């Protein structure tokens, strides 16, 4: 996200796609891909319309050159955006609000509470909206042929949803107050323990991250697209940081697939 280097962006994108593939169901994953691939292409080919710098013009559109460098820069921007979105999706799938509260509950209780409630709201509203829609359908709301009536029906569902969400928020607040949230000295039980394997993994990740940051500090990730695309660096510093970044990006996929294999193996022995 912080560099425009195509190698690093490609590695990050690969890690995100692999990890998302392994933690979501096939149908979800392919429908996601079907959205993000056209988005990628759209951003790639919108950049040349605005940026005309670059030494290799492919053709001239309205007296402004559409250059190869602009297309590459567009691809890099699109890749960066897609990678960030996919990693956020993976993070959202992996962490539950309980884990979030446990981690940040002591440091910033109000902020972590607000964040976890906000994150919970989107799927909750979606599910409730679907429920209201289904009930209204059985009650005969969308039977009219006219466009205006259909829009009015959708607005009714929307206003019901908003009213419900406000009431739900009040209910949640009352319930939290009744259970004593925010009182001094309130503790919560959590089942998370820090094992030695967690410690080893943490140290490994920190070491890899230090190497990557050292490489970036020495200019391994510098890359520019205008007026001509800079050459990929091949010195040991850049290759090492690239390798360590690859290890970091593929780590979630590796751990998840190792666990899956172990599970399948143990199951087969029953």
């Amino acid at each position, binding site marked *: 996200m912080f560099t425009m280097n195509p190698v690093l962006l490609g590695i990050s994108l690969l890690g995100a796609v692999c990890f998302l593939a392994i933690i979501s169901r096939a149908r979800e994953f392919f429908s996601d891909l079907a*959205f993000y691939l056209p988005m990628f292409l759209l951003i790639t*080919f919108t950049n040349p319309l605005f940026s005309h710098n670059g030494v290799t013009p492919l053709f001239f559109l309205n007296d402004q050159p559409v250059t190869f460098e602009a297309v590459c820069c567009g691809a890099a921007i699109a890749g960066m955006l897609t990678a960030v979105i996919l990693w956020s999706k993976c993070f959202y799938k992996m962490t539950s609000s309980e884990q979030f509260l446990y981690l940040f509950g002591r440091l910033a209780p109000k902020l972590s509470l607000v964040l976890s409630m906000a994150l919970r709201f989107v799927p909750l509203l979606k599910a409730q909206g679907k429920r209201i829609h289904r009930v209204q359908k059985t009650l005969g709301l969308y039977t009219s042929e006219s466009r205006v009536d259909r829009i009015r029906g959708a607005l009714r569902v929307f206003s019901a949803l908003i009213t419900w969400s406000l009431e739900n928020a009040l209910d949640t607040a009352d319930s939290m107050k009744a259970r004593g949230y925010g009182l001094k000295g309130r503790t919560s039980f959590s089942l998370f323990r820090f094992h030695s394997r967690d410690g080893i993994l943490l140290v490994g990740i920190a070491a890899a991250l230090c190497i990557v940051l050292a490489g970036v500090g020495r200019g391994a990730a510098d890359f520019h697209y205008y007026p001509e695309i800079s050459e990929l660096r091949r010195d040991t510093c850049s290759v090492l940081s690239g390798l360590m970044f690859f290890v970091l990006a593929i780590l979630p996929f590796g751990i998840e697939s190792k666990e899956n294999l172990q599970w399948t193996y143990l199951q087969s022995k029953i």
Partner: protein
Amino acid sequence: MKKDVLAFAFLALLVAVLISGTKIQSVDEYYLTHLDDITPNSQTVTVSIRCDTVLQNWNQLDPALQSEKYVPANGVILPATKVVLRPKDTAFDILDRTVRAKKIQMEYQGADQNQFGSVYVKGIHYLYEFSCGPLSGWMYQVNGIYPNYGSSKYTLHPNDVMEWVYTCDLGRDVGNEWKEAG
């Protein structure tokens, strides 16, 4: 829902492309401009493009541009060239025709896209505004005086000498002090 968003975005892109007009030319076609031949009774102006102020501010220059290929050693991108002046030619018309004939890269922003109503020259020979520090950009002078307004609004007269210079200090290093109004 997501498909609708995507379809809408594609449609918006298509409409934007169509509205902006679609004049597609290949690279050769674009550079096929032929400079009019100079005959004894044709009116001419002299054009030159230079960027020698960059040589004095080398450490502020964008690292991607720090090479002989983009900044000539003597700072002259186009030496003084005589070009035929057609009637009602503006300073920008002459620049555009000359750089196309000499195959020099030039990027400009059309007159309808800024609030001044005139063409803004963003970059010549890959040197853009802010490429050499936050006070850098292109300026033009005619007969030693800087008009200080857009080049598509300045009509040239025969035997004018037009120079396009790259400044790294808002015009102070090329002889144009910008005085505040009033």
